[in-house]
């Protein structure tokens, strides 16, 4: 595997690379077409910047508007090594924290570049009018996220993703208005088209008319997000899917580290069988919330039976297990660590809701702390308890109001008065299409950006780093690196869509849809998706072992066979048909799930979000095996997912010493 990392010292690599790569002159850019699939932070940013540089851009998204891509749901913030707080932050520290947080399974050069451009993202977004939170002096405010010891997270209340996405969307709108971007909304990419081994276009389906369309380009960028919905229940949007990435994989793009999945510790617990998705409660809440379960088993049982309220439990009867196990980082340990610790307590019988799968996230002490401070600054020297709590609740509301409201609407409990109940849920996928330093996949001309690629987060992503990576890829990395590739295409001319390659790809897409419609019609698409989700959650979830992973490979393969024979898809191909849309996506999840389990089975170590029960320390911490697994597992499609061929990219650490990750 050639990752094309530039030579030279770490801090100089990106600058040197930018100076060395080929450029396309402005007049020639006007003759080059680029397709961008997905309009979230990575896709929206890339589309806007490429159009601004002069390329002709076509964007595709399944939503009715680019503004609705799921980046919009990111809550807490975006990291940047600005060191505005003067607390010792630097590009190196952000780089180091990210490599360590990813449990030493990401590429040094990529992560350093990410840290290097991070500060510029904030400058850019402020210039675009993104209303970040500010202090009274008018300067930008920061907060802290898990796995770090500095405050480097910029935020816009609990809607940071929304504000950044609307920024990218507005940059896109400016280019749409200039005619440099043609936006195909309510369109789904059904397949990638290769001509002479290069990505030269896509087959798309107009989701309103059902029409199959051909679109050609000199390069194709996939910014289509992650595959968390393979678990059925996740914090992803209902429509989030792996189709574009998986279609590219089937055409030759290697899929890297599919088993690296992030299970986020603070989500609203599952309430019943009808549940269609899970809702995240931002990690920023762990700045002020303390996580606990009862110390005594009888208290946990009484709480579950509704005989005892959490607020009645004395301080000494509570087990603040993160503060107990990890005194240095406390409630702000990284996500994988916090999730496993919650599972450990609940498995041991200390869970606090009906299902026994929930822990408390408690704001009572923060409310008191803020209330006292607010009373003092308001001139109240001897405030009573009620005043302190009232003032404290106001501070908490200003910080997290929308999250508290969201919680109350879903759970029907007031989190200002009683602790929130939370449990881990599938949130983000670190794995994705393998890309080199230029973000190019193993198919020439096919690029992957944002969550869709595997590149920067190793085996675990730190909070507030997804937004950073999406925008870094889209605004600052891809627009440079893609020019190097496109510089060979200045004489190519328009790519025709009446070639045999397009004929063949379109035929495959039609045949596949007809096959989906032709099932015996016993079960709905959701029936299969839920079954797949159960296998994934039970056997490929927070803790995995060889026996169950072997079972998962077999069970998913059987389920896929059943799906193709018996699925029921009503309606027609040539009209708006949401069930058909879902069917195509679930068909691909049924393949990806198998590769996921195979990858998890082959990785005989525990690292980051991948926890193998066979490989743990006596204290139950993840036990990495750097001797045998210090590599990226890049899988090549070979017919059935279980036959995929493994390619290894060895990870070289020249600037960071590999250590056992400790947050104690």
């Amino acid at each position, binding site marked *: 595997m050639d990752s094309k990392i530039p030579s030279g010292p770490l801090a100089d690599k990106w600058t040197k690379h930018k100076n060395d790569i080929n450029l396309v002159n402005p007049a020639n850019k006007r003759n080059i077409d680029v397709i961008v699939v997905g309009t979230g932070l990575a896709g929206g*940013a890339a589309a*806007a910047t490429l159009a*601004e540089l002069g390329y002709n851009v076509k964007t595709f998204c399944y*939503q*009715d*508007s680019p*503004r*609705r891509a799921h980046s*919009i*749901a990111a809550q807490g913030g975006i990291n940047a090594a*600005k060191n*505005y707080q003067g607390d010792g932050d630097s590009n190196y520290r952000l780089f180091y924290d990210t490599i360590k947080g990813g449990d030493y399974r990401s590429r040094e050069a990529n992560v350093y570049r990410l840290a290097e451009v991070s500060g*510029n993202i*904030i*400058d*850019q977004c402020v*210039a*675009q*009018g993104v*209303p*970040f*939170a*500010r*202090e*009274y002096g*008018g*300067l930008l405010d920061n907060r802290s996220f898990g796995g770090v010891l500095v405050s480097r997270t910029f935020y*816009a*209340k609990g809607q940071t*993703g*929304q504000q950044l996405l*609307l920024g990218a969307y*507005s*940059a896109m*709108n*400016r280019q749409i208005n200039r005619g440099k971007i043609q*936006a195909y*909304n309510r369109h789904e990419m059904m397949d990638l088209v290769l001509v002479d081994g290069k990505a030269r276009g896509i087959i798309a389906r107009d989701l*309103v008319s059902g029409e199959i369309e051909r679109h050609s380009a000199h390069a194709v960028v996939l910014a289509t997000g992650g595959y968390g919905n393979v678990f059925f229940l996740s914090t992803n*949007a*209902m*429509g989030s899917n792996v189709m574009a990435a998986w279609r590219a994989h089937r055409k030759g793009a290697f899929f890297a580290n599919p088993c690296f999945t992030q299970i986020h510790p603070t989500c609203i617990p599952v*309430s*019943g069988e*009808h549940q*269609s*998705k899970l809702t995240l409660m931002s990690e920023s809440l762990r700045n002020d919330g303390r996580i606990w379960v009862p110390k005594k088993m009888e208290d946990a049982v009484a709480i579950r039976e509704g005989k005892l309220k959490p607020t009645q439990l004395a301080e000494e009867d509570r087990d603040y297990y993160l503060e107990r196990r990890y005194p240095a980082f406390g409630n702000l340990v990284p996500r994988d660590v916090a999730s496993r610790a919650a599972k450990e307590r609940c498995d041991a019988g200390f869970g606090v809701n009906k299902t026994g799968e929930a822990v408390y996230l408690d704001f009572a002490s923060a409310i008191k702390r803020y209330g006292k401070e607010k009373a003092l600054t308001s001139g109240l020297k001897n405030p009573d308890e009620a005043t302190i709590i009232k003032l404290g609740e106001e501070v908490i509301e200003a910080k997290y109001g929308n999250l508290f409201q*969201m919680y109350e*609407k*879903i759970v029907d409990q007031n989190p200002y008065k009683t602790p929130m109940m939370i449990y881990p849920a599938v949130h983000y996928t670190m794995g994705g299409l393998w890309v080199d330093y230029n973000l190019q996949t193993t198919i020439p001309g096919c690029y992957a950006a944002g969550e869709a690629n595997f590149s920067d987060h190793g085996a675990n992503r730190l909070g507030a780093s997804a937004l950073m990576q999406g925008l870094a890829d889209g*605004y*600052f990395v891809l627009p440079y690196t893609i020019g190097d590739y496109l510089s060979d295409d200045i004489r190519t001319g328009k790519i025709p869509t009446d070639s045999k390659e397009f004929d063949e790809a379109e035929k495959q897409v039609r045949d596949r849809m007809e096959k989906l419609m032709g099932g015996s*019609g016993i079960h*709905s698409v959701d029936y299969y998706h839920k079954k797949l989700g159960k296998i994934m959650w039970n056997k490929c979830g927070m803790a995995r072992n060889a026996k169950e992973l072997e079972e998962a490979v077999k069970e998913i393969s059987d389920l896929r066979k059943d799906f193709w024979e018996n699925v029921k898809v*009503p*309606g027609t191909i040539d*009209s*708006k048909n*949401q*069930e058909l849309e879902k069917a195509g996506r679930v068909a691909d999840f049924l393949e990806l799930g198998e590769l996921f389990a195979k990858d998890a089975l082959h990785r005989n170590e525990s690292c980051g979000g991948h926890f193998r029960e066979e490989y743990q320390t006596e204290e139950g911490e993840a036990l990495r095996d750097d001797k045998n697994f210090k590599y990226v597992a890049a899988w090549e499609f070979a017919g059935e997912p279980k036959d995929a061929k493994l390619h290894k990219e060895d990870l070289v650490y020249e600037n960071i010493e590999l250590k056992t990750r400790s947050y104690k």
Partner: protein
Amino acid sequence: MKLYLKIWRQKDASSAGKIVDYTLDGVEGDMSFLEMLDILNEELISKGEEPVEFDHDCREGICGTCSLQINGEPHGPDRLVTTCQLHMRKFNDGDTIVIEPFRAKAFPVIKDLIVDRSSFDRIQQAGGYISVNTSGNTVDANAIPINKHAADEAMDAATCIGCGACVAACKNASAMLFTSAKVSQFALLPQGRVEAVERVQNMVRQMDLEGFGNCTNTGACEVECPKGISLTNIARMNREYLSATLKG
């Protein structure tokens, strides 16, 4: 609980639609409104009928995809929520619920409960941006201090999710709340002042071209807005528009 549903069914944009009755049993209070529709659809599919199509995506109240006019109100009877956050505990056993698409000339029906809101995108394309290049070659983010109150107010306006409830709530199908939220966000920030004159004129012109109605200050939009976007934004846009017109 058992519910009696009256749902708008329409094959496509060119067909006529009608209300169809369904009875649904076994609905629980913890279900969201959309999960209730999921269950109805599972039943319809198992009976060999076509499911009811409706727009939805994030199901946590932020993407703005879900819509639905429920018993005459956009996003239903609860306040400050989208349909996906509306829970069935707000209804009672035996209730009849009428479910229709958002109604407006500028939001044509695509199928069943799905409408076309691309008119909103075109309003944004007309001027809902600050014309800076995304090269990153700009000043340091802290070089322009911004008054915290102005920044907070800009943020409040910026939280609009573009769902269209304001239009559906308005007897004139006006898009003033939506358009003014974006105009306000930029009017309140120094970065946005540079193009303020052109922006408000271009966005208002596009809004009128799309066939949205005028504002008669009924305030229904503010009441139904799931994000609590304030009517003050409309006043601010009117002032911006007037001053832009006077400046010519």
